[in-house]
């Protein structure tokens, strides 16, 4: 059976009052939703929560789902939106519980002194810098960047998924990339010099 057809049949069964058929949709798309959620939130528990919330939201809004559309794409947008909501909620909790000057800045945990070129080339150091840059991104920047860079969604698709204006999505990607460049410029220049 074609994927889209299997989805359409499951959706029709749920709409006809057979909620157990929703399990078919979960089994078909749960892993993709989980993968996306994990990439966006970077946390396993959060990813599982996003899976729950995404499928619940999809179930509640199934009446608004157009039968001609792809269920997977529709659900994917919901999952991106749920992940974004979770990141925003997390940022708000952090803002409430921690004073502004106590915001975790992973750069602060760098050992004293500038790391030498050898350390910069080390994968662990690069990874740490990427994480630090990601942690300095807002929920919107992180979401937009992950969807653009790792999930390959276009700016227009990101805007649609996160309910934003196209310009807001675009600017968020720009700001995120600026933060990454700030964190990795030294490494990139070193790598380019090594290539030359």
């Amino acid at each position, binding site marked *: 059976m074609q994927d889209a057809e299997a989805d359409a049949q499951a959706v029709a069964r749920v709409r006809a009052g057979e*909620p*157990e058929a*929703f*399990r078919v949709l*979960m*089994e078909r798309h*749960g*892993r993709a939703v*989980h*993968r996306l959620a*994990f*990439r966006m939130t970077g946390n*396993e528990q959060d*990813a*599982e929560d996003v*899976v*729950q919330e995404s*499928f*619940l939201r999809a*179930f*509640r809004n199934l009446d608004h789902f157009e039968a001609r559309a792809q269920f997977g794409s529709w659900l994917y947008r919901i999952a991106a*939106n749920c992940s974004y*909501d979770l990141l*925003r909620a997390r*940022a*708000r909790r952090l*803002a*409430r519980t921690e004073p*502004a000057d106590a915001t975790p800045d992973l750069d602060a945990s760098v050992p004293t002194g500038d790391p030498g070129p050898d350390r910069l080339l080390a*994968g662990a150091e*690069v*990874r740490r810098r*990427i994480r630090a840059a990601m942690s300095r991104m*807002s929920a*919107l920047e992180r979401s937009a960047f992950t969807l*653009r*860079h*790792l999930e390959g969604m*276009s*700016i227009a698709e990101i805007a649609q998924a*996160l*309910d*934003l*204006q196209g310009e*807001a999505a*675009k600017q968020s*990607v*720009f700001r995120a*990339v*600026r933060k*990454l*460049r700030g964190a*990795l*410029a030294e*490494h*990139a*220049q070193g*790598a*380019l010099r090594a290539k030359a």
Partner: protein
Amino acid sequence: MSARLGTHVTDDDLVLHYYGESERPALLDAHLDACAACGARWQELSQVLAVVTDEAMREARTPEFGDREMDAAWQRLAPRLASARQRARLRRVMVPLAVAASLVLAFTIGRHWPAAPEVAPGGTERVLLVAVGDHLERSEMLLVELVNASPDQPVDIGSEQRQAHELLGASRLYRAAVTRAGEPGLASVLEELERLLVEVSHRPSEISPDELAVLRRRIESRGLLFKVRVLEWQVREKQKEPAPGAAAVS
């Protein structure tokens, strides 16, 4: 974007080009070949983003979400689906009933005013109370979201705006109903709530920290969140009464 060779391109143009979303990729490619400064920035950007991709791939050990996890997730989800289905059914029944209840109450109270509205049918009043209680609960959640939003940076309130828009329509309906039912306290809070909902739904989806502060001040200075919570509690308590009359909840 710079349209001519010899004009440096911006970093943002380079980002769009990297992701294949530049409006004039051929022109940009030609410029990057010809301009050493822009070419170097392009190389650096590409290197940074390639490193991010490499690291993401290396770290791509997404936690297992196999059959066992899937089953656990379904066990957790299934009761929530049942509950969502029940609520949806209830809502489908409640909204028209709430309208009907408001009409019945208005008619009854109008006929017997100023006598105590003892003739109001308990069933319809209960339906109205359930609907208003649900409405207050959703409004409270929205106010909490706004009050707790991070004030340090521009905030996207797109989803709150959608909620505000939905709540606004319902709020007007319920206010009219409770006004007719002789609940001035409840009507007054709903009116205050509506003004805030209008303000939220008419703002741009991304608001500055200053605009957010204005909204929060409005909520906090008039104790709107507190009033909504108290009313919600009173409405819920009223619902528990065994023989519902038409006594005031405010």
